[in-house]
């Protein structure tokens, strides 16, 4: 801005300027062309599968060799003396624990790199910056990330149409929220609602205590995966676990009011004990827990932080998904 002051206002002679592509104002953020993009996933998926197959088989081979070697060595030691074998086993155990810790740490770093965290922070700063036009590059990244899914791509194309060169960074972010994120939020919340309902039903009908825990675990993992997919994160199994771990970390800091009692109270009032069996209550608790987990997953996967007025509400989510569950037995009971 300061450098511009000594250029005299007026018509510039033709050919005197060189366009700077994509630096500041890029009215059409470069998106994968629809045709190209439609053919891309199958190709890339095949490549990814071979890569995974190669990596997995190599890893299996190496770890198999190491495990067999170590087992043979241990057996050898035990043959000589039980004490020697015990020491060897301790050593190997120590090494494997350290290895696991190391891999976990590495993986966390990897996840942190891949995470939407940095994008969220940058997004937050941009959403505060009115009258600035420096965020188009970032918006391009954001669009590229979100356009991974089919719905995401359609929405991003709408976004590309709606944004004009006269929108400043803040407006660009607001438009992204309105056009792209709002529908995605709804899809993610629908996934959470489904999962909450499934776990609630599963936990309340399962005959054995162990099984409902398994149901909850399996369904929650699937939910987190679905939520991540909605926001274009393409999660692998391991990254879902890492995501869940990070969600728990944030959960310890986040002040989330416990609404379980609230929701139950609102729906059933003082008749709770008389109306629902202990099993159903267990199921509802499991559903509420899943819903809360889902909200944490949404917060972690969403590329931009929520503003206060569009943050999803646990109570609403729970009553939407579990309300019918609570109502129907209550009405049929008498």
């Amino acid at each position: 801005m300061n450098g511009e002051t000594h250029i005299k206002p007026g018509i510039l002679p033709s050919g005197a300027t060189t366009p700077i592509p994509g630096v500041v104002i890029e009215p059409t953020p470069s998106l994968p062309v629809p045709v190209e993009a439609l053919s891309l996933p199958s190709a890339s998926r095949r490549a990814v599968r071979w890569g995974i197959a190669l990596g997995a088989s190599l890893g299996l081979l190496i770890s198999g060799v190491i495990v067999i070697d170590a087992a043979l060595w241990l057996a050898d030691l035990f043959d000589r003396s039980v004490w020697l074998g015990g020491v060897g086993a301790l050593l190997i155990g120590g090494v494997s624990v350290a290895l696991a810790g190391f891999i976990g740490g590495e993986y966390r770093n990897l996840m942190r790199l891949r995470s939407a965290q940095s994008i969220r922070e940058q997004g937050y700063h941009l959403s505060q910056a009115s009258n600035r036009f420096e965020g188009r590059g970032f918006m391009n990244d954001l669009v590229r990330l979100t356009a991974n899914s089919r719905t995401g791509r359609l929405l991003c194309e709408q976004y590309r149409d709606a944004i004009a060169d006269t929108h400043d960074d803040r407006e660009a972010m607001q438009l992204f929220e309105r056009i792209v994120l709002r529908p995605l939020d709804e899809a993610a919340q629908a996934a959470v609602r489904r999962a909450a309902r499934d776990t609630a039903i599963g936990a309340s009908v399962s005959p054995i205590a162990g099984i409902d825990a398994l149901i909850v675990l399996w369904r929650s993992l699937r939910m987190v995966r679905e939520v991540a997919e909605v926001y274009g994160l393409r999660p692998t199994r391991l990254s879902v676990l890492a995501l869940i771990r990070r969600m728990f970390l944030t959960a310890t800091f986040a002040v989330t009011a416990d609404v379980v009692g609230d929701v139950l109270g609102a729906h059933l009032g003082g008749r709770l004990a008389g109306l629902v069996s202990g099993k159903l209550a267990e199921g509802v608790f499991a559903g509420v827990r899943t819903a809360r987990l889902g909200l944490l997953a949404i917060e972690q996967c969403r590329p931009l932080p929520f503003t206060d007025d569009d943050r999803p509400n646990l109570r609403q989510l729970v009553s939407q998904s579990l309300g019918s569950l609570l109502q129907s037995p209550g009405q049929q009971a008498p």
Partner: protein
Amino acid sequence: MWSRQRPARKLFNILDDSSVSPTGVTLLSPSTDDFGQKVLTLADRAASSIATGARLLAERALRRKLRVAVTGLSRAGKTVFLTALLHNLHLAARLKEGQTGHLPFFDPVAKGGLEDVTLRPLADLPAFPFLPNLDRLLEPSPEFPPSTTGLSGFGAALRYRPQGLLGRQLVDTTTVDVEIIDYPGEWLLDLSMLEQSFEEWSTAMLLLSHTGPRASLSGAWREISPDAPASEDALEAARVSYTAYLHVCRQPPLSLSFLQPGRFLRPGDDGVDLSAFRFCPLSPAGGDVRTGTMAAAMRDRFERYKREFVRPFYEDVFSGFDRQLVLVDVVGALNAGPQSFDDMRLALNAVLRSFERDGEGLLARLFRSRTDKVLFAATKADHVTANQFHNLRLLLRAMMADDAGRLPVGGVETEFAALSAVKCTANKRVLYQGQQITVLEGTIKNHGAPEQLFPGEIPEHLPTPEDWTSERFRFYDFQPPSLDRDRERGIPHIHLDKALQFLVGDLFW
């Protein structure tokens, strides 16, 4: 569909419960299932018709009406604004799946609730020439529509699906009738005349006419003696001469804005009786004003003008506006030079008095105004690069505020904006003489081919004397872009949707 069925079902459940409740069934018929079934069907029908009736009633009761006035001194771009606004609104409800219109910041469009927009002329006002204006903009070689001269309006009925929790429970769709009225901003200049006598007004106007660029203008009206005998012909000659003087003041090169009485320039409809306009500023008569002289006759006409034109406008028209948009050609004022700029500030201060609703404001003392939101907008924002919008807004605010930076608009929510009803230029980031700058690309009026230009910067405060001498302000007018390609999506603009959201957005719950 979901929301339509739910209350009906609830209602049905209630009736259902009562008809199958043990006592009810025993009383009616203890044995025949057939009869019970009939009762059920009847109850079902009654419930659904009651539900439908309640829904219709709720829809009718919740229909809202809002008058939005768009005003501005001449050349501010009222006509183009109205045309673009109506057209974009009309198309917003007709977008195809996956298509994005030009109003993403207008909530009913953004949240996907807008079902239909019906445009129609208003019953009590002349119709705004929307379609002819639109045709001119959509032609292969488009032109800006000619400006309107009087009061006109157009209605837009926006039917939408409520997105809020409460609204969804009450109705499926509901309608907001937005009546958009266009009136000349010049009419607002006359408010202060209401508290002036003819002598006071004459003195003020004569003083003004002897200062600045006005002093250079001659006119037969300056020669009129207050003691001369009055005749209709002499009075008419005075009106014609004074009106001509005002017109010269308004035209370039003077481009002045504070021109009283504003109605002389924009009398309104063709059929207006101009006999009440037969007065002009008159130097005070020495001694008493005798009947039969020009001074006496003009004083009568002055009072009649106030009684027949100024008061009725505020009482019947202005008081009915719920929201107002005041368009100001800030860019044009900068182009026209310091004297024109200062004169526009005078005019804007006079305009602002019409929006004072609190306490000692003249308007508050004389009339009751319904206007609770006013948006002041600097038009022609496409004449500058996008990074100057912020300064454009600040400058507009500085122009309207008094010297201490205060805005005397108590009791009204105000906001400032930079907008352009038709976006004629594109912003491009280029390298020029070793510097990265943002330039405008567009076809300058009468130039024929698109060019790039560096429009310079808008000061964020009132320009200093050095700003005026350094040839800093030279903003070009542009040719409207050809809209053929974009016909289905509407007219590209700058911040039209945000203005709409501010003015009427709060009605869509």
